[in-house]
């Protein structure tokens, strides 16, 4: 996974026992940990146990991570490892049946799957970095089912004619966010 400058800052602050920095790390990467557990088709209970292990390992290793920017990759590897361990211990007890995950399938398109998750991660980080009014507007615009412009205008106290241009400006801000720029550059 690519460099994201703010990861380095977050890890450094968490190392200095900044609880808020740690919480931001958790909020940011929890969806990735969850997506990996789901890909291995593990139960919610198993995902909880795996996540607990992963987070505690990270807390323990915060001081020794040599490259903070490599944190996403570390999370992917560690979570995958714990998922495999969980599968192996289940295999000992439960006969393999149809709804057991198939690890080969999991790794076959692993690269493209990971790219999708990485892209989602970057987009969320960039979204969190644009002004609040942009976040509000874009949230209403990508809502499913679509929200009529008239409703958006009323809700956000905007002229309907201003929505289109503001949408464009907000999306441009998103494109310019360092996290997205770094991702697209590589």
């Amino acid at each position, binding site marked *: 996974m690519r460099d994201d400058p703010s990861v380095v800052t977050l890890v450094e602050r968490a190392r200095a*026992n900044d609880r808020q920095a740690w919480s931001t790390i*958790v909020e940011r990467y929890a969806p990735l940990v969850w997506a990996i557990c789901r890909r291995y088709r593990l139960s919610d209970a198993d995902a909880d*146990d795996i*996540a607990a292990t992963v987070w505690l390992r990270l807390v323990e290793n915060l001081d020794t991570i040599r490259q903070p920017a490599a944190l996403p990759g570390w999370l992917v590897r560690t979570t995958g490892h714990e998922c495999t361990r969980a599968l192996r211990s289940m295999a000992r007890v439960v006969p393999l049946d149809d709804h057991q995950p198939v690890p080969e399938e999991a790794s076959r398109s692993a690269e493209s799957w990971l790219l999708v998750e990485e892209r*989602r991660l970057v*987009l969320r980080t960039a979204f969190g970095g644009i002004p609040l009014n942009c976040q509000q507007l874009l*949230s209403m615009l990508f809502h*499913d089912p679509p929200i009529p412009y008239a409703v958006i205008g009323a809700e956000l106290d905007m002229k309907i004619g201003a929505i289109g241009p503001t949408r*464009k400006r907000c999306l441009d801000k998103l494109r310019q966010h360092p996290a997205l720029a770094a991702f697209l550059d590589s």
Partner: protein
Amino acid sequence: MVRGVADPWWNDDDQLLAAVGDALRAAGETPRRLVEIGKAAFVWRDIESDLAALTYDSAASEPDPRLVGALRGTESATLRAMTFVASRLTIELELTSEALLGQVTPFEPGEVDLWPAHGAPRPVPIDEVGWFAVRPLPTGPFRLHVRTGAGSVLTDWITL
């Protein structure tokens, strides 16, 4: 606006917007407890702890007949025995059908917190000769945070 044949998705406003929506919806599906567990894990940085290494686990090797009832001549058979070693103290665990028995060396009183994978820890007293008993048996993985005069020690995850 003229679009090239292979215009990148991020240059197209509609596609970028859809991608952001997809990314945020994916995050919205993440169970909150995964996040809560993560945030709670930060407490481990405040605990001045030694990490205890598992040096023996009967579940990983042939059962040793000498272990049966080794701790306190218990009536229940020993189902499993484990030894955790840290620089300042040692924890020997014995699993019976109804309890997890522990012996801390050096023999000193204290307290052990049983941390489940998520949720609040369960405190258990360690008596004056370093002995403790956990009842009922924990379900799911847990860690033991053992604190006596000799030191403060954390074990790795244990699954019974």
